[in-house]
C-alpha cells in the first residue's frame, strides 16, 4: 500500500523524464516546479497530522521516556565519594595504588572529613564504604569528630588515631569509587562484585540471588506462556466457530478476569488452592489423597503459575481469536476434500495459518509475565516470586538499594527488548496480529 503510494509520483516523474531527456523538471501551469507545489499543497495536511499526535507524544515523553531515562542513569550513579570527599577524590587519582598513599591524600581526607562533619554529610559516605569494608564507618566517623583538631603531618596523625587508616584495601576502594559512574550495581544485579583487589568476581554462592531469580522469572514466564497457549487455543477456536450471540457470551467469560478485582480474584485462588482449601478437600474426600499428604498449591511456584495463567489467558485468547475469526472454514474443508484427515488438515493447514495469532499472544503474555509483580507477591510465597518483587523491595530501601533496583529494572528492560528482537528475527513482528 505505502509502496505504491510512494512509487506513484516518482514513476510519473520518471516517465516524464524518459519522454524528453535532458528537459527541465515538470512544472505546474504557472511555472512552479511540480515537486515544490506538491510539497506546499501537502504541508498543511502534515502539520495537522503532527498536531493531532502531539499531545500524546508529549504525554509519553514526560511520563514514560523521561522516567526510564532517569532510572537508567540512576543505575550507574556513584555520587558518595566524589561528592562528599571532593578533595580526596581530586588527589587520589595521582596515587599509583601501591602501598599507602602519600601525605597530600591524607591531608585532603582530613579536610574533607572536617567539612563533612560540619555539614553533617559524612555519614552518607561512611555508610557507602562500610558496605564494602566493614568497620570503615567506625574509624572514619571517629576521625571526623576530631578532624578540626588534627595537625599535620596528617598521615602520621591519622594512622596514630586509628590503624584502620593504614588499610591498603580501604584506599584502593576509595580510588575506585571516586569515579562518579560505576558498573557496581549491574555487577551486583548479576551476582558479581569487586574483590578486595578490584577484580570482578562471582559472589559467594549463598549470596547469589538475582541471577537465579532472573532465570526463574524467565522460566516461569515461559511455562505460563505455554499454558496460556494450551488452554487458550481451543477456547479461541470455539469462540471463532460459534455463532456471534453465543461467542459474545463466552467472550465475556473470557474477559471476566479483567473485570474482577485483583484481591477478590486472589482470595478466590487462596480459598481454592490452600492446604485446607476446596481442591485439597475434594481430593481427600474422594480418597485420591491421604489427609496427611495434602498438596501445597499456593504460596509457591504452583500458586504463581496457576494464578498468572488465569490472569494472562485473555491476552492469548484475544489475538488468537482475531486471527481465527478471519480463517474461512473452507480452508479446512479444502484440506479434507483433498484427502487429509481431520488431524492432518489441522496440523498442516489450520495451525500454520494461526501462527501470527500464537506469536502475538506469546509476545504479549511473555512480556507481561516477565514484569509481573502483584500476583507473585500475593500468592508466590518465597519460591514463586519474580524479579520484579525484589526490584520493588529494593525500591523502598536506601539510595544504594534504589540504584540496585534501577540496575535490575534496566536489565529486565534489556532482557525484554532482547526477547523482542529475537522474536522479530524468528517470527517477524510485522506478521503479528494483535486483534
Amino acid at each position: 500500500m505505502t509502496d505504491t503510494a510512494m512509487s506513484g509520483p516518482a514513476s510519473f516523474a520518471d516517465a516524464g523524464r524518459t519522454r524528453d531527456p535532458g528537459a527541465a523538471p515538470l512544472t505546474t501551469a504557472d511555472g512552479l516546479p511540480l515537486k515544490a507545489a506538491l510539497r506546499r499543497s501537502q504541508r498543511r495536511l502534515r502539520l495537522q497530522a503532527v498536531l493531532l499526535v502531539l499531545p500524546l507524544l508529549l504525554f509519553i515523553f514526560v511520563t514514560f521516556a523521561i522516567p526510564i531515562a532517569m532510572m537508567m542513569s540512576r543505575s550507574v550513579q556513584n555520587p558518595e565519594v566524589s561528592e562528599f570527599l571532593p578533595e580526596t577524590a581530586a588527589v587520589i587519582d595521582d596515587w599509583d595504588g601501591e602501598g599507602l598513599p602519600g601525605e597530600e591524600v591524607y591531608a585532603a581526607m582530613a579536610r574533607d572529613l572536617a567539612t563533612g562533619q560540619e555539614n553533617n554529610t559524612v555519614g552518607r559516605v561512611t555508610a557507602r564504604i562500610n558496605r564494602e569494608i566493614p568497620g570503615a564507618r567506625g574509624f572514619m566517623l571517629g576521625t571526623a569528630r576530631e578532624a578540626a583538631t588534627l595537625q599535620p603531618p596528617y598521615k602520621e596523625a591519622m594512622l596514630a588515631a586509628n590503624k584502620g587508616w593504614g588499610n591498603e584495601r580501604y584506599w584502593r576502594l576509595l580510588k575506585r569509587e571516586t569515579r562518579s559512574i560505576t558498573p557496581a550495581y549491574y555487577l551486583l544485579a548479576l551476582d558479581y562484585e569487586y574483590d578486595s583487589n578490584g577484580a570482578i568476581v562471582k559472589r559467594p554462592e549463598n549470596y547469589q540471588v538475582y541471577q537465579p531469580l532472573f532465570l526463574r522469572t524467565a522460566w516461569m514466564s515461559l511455562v505460563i506462556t505455554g499454558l496460556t497457549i494450551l488452554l487458550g487455543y481451543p477456547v479461541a477456536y470455539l469462540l471463532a466457530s460459534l455463532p456471534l450471540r453465543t461467542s459474545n457470551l463466552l467472550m465475556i467469560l473470557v474477559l471476566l478476569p479483567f473485570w474482577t478485582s485483583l484481591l477478590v480474584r486472589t482470595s478466590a485462588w487462596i480459598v481454592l488452592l490452600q492446604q485446607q482449601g476446596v481442591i485439597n478437600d475434594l481430593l481427600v474426600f474422594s480418597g485420591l489423597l491421604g489427609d496427611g499428604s495434602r498438596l501445597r498449591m499456593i504460596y509457591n511456584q504452583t500458586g504463581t503459575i496457576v494464578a498468572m495463567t488465569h490472569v494472562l489467558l485473555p491476552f492469548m485468547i484475544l489475538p488468537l481469536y482475531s486471527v481465527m475469526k478471519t480463517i474461512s472454514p473452507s480452508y479446512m474443508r479444502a484440506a479434507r476434500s483433498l484427502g487429509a484427515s481431520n488431524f492432518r488438515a489441522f496440523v498442516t493447514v489450520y495451525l500454520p495459518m494461526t501462527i501470527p495469532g500464537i506469536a502475538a499472544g506469546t509476545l504479549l503474555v511473555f512480556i507481561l509475565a516477565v514484569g509481573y509483580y502483584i500476583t507473585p507477591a500475593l500468592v508466590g510465597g518465597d519460591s514463586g516470586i519474580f524479579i520484579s518483587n525484589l526490584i520493588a523491595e529494593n525500591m523502598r530501601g536506601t539510595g544504594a538499594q534504589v540504584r540496585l533496583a534501577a540496575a535490575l529494572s534496566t536489565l529486565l528492560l534489556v532482557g525484554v527488548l532482547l526477547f523482542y528482537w529475537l522474536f522479530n528475527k524468528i517470527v517477524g513482528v510485522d506478521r503479528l496480529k494483535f486483534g
Partner: protein
Amino acid sequence: MIASPNGHQNGNVGAGDASYVRFENVQKSYDGESLVVKDLNLDIPRGEFLTMLGPSGSGKTTCLMMLAGFEPATHGEIFLNGHPINNLPPHKRGIGMVFQNYALFPHMTVAENLAYPLKVRGMSKAEIETRVKRALDMVELPRMAGRRPAQLSGGQQQRVAVARAVVFEPDLVLMDEPLGALDKQLREQMQYEVKHIQERLGVTVVYVTHDQTEALTMSDRVAVFNDGRIQQLSSPQALYEAPTSSFVAKFIGENNVLSGRIASIEGDTCRVELDGGGTVGAVPIAVQGIGSRTSLSIRPERVVLDPGPDVPNGLDGVILELIYLGDHIRVRMDVAGNDEFIVKIPNGAEMRPLERGARVRLGWRTRDCRALDPVG
C-alpha cells in the same frame, strides 16, 4: 474402493455409469424446524457436467456440501459409484472440490498447494513433481509454481484452485460458485476453460451457481432449485425453450408473462382468455383444466411485430420505451395490461422505424407460448 481416485477401474462399472452419483430421498434440516432440502432424488451419470442452479437459499449449496461430506444428510442416502457414502468422512470420498473463495492455502506456494493432495496420498517426490508440473501446464501457469496465492491475480488463483481439485485425478469434482469473484469478462473466459478441462479429463462435475448464463453455457444438464426442491432437470436448451413452471421460465432468461384463464383445450393446444382482453393460443404445460387460471410465458425474441397472416395470435400493444442495443432493439410495450412486455427486434435490413407511443400489432406462434402455473 470409493476412496481410490480411480474407483471405476476396479470393475464396478455397472452400478456406476447410469447413476454415478445418486441422491435418494435426501432431506436436510439445520434447525429441526424447516427443511432446506426437501426430498431430493437425483441421478448423475459418469462424465456429466451437472449444474445446480437456483437463487440463494434454494438448497443447492447444501446439496453440494452433503455430497462432499461436510454436512450430514438428515434423511435419505447418497450413493457414489453404487456405494452409500453417508458415513464416509470427506477425506475418504476422493472428491475434488473448488471453493467459492478458492481456499488456496496462503502459507504454501502454488506448487505446494498442488502437491498437498498427492503428499497426503503418500506419493513419491518424483511422481508428485511430474503431476504438479502437468497440472500447472494444463491450466497454463507453468511459471507460477513458486508464487504464493496472494501474489496471483483472481483468474490465476481460480486456475490453481481448479488444478488442485483435479491433480489427484478424482472422478468427481464439485464446484461451489467458483467464478463468483471474477469480473464479467474473466468469468466468461473461465467458463470455457473449466468446461474444456472437464471434457479433456472426462470427470464428472457437479457445479453450483446462481448465474444462469454460467449454467446454460457449461452444463450437460441443469437442475433448477427453488425452495429446497428441483423444479426442473433438463438440458440447457430444454430449460430455456421448454420451461415446465413459471418459476423456471422467469428464472432462466427473459420472459414475458400474461395472466389469463383457460377457455378450451384441444389436443396439444389451448385457448386462453387474457385478463387484459383478447384470446390467444398456447401450449398447455402446467394447467389444471378448463376454467383454471394460468400464466402464459413468451420469450421476447419470439414475439413478432406486424405479424403476417400465418401467425395466429395477434394483440395490440403500445410502445412505451425503445432501447437501442446495437445488434437489436429492446422495445418495452403495454400489452394486455402488462406494461413490462419486452420485445426484442433484431437490427435487420428490413426493420421499419419505431416510435414511442405508437400502436402496433404483435403476435407469436402458438408453440412459442406456454401456459404454465399461475403466478401470484
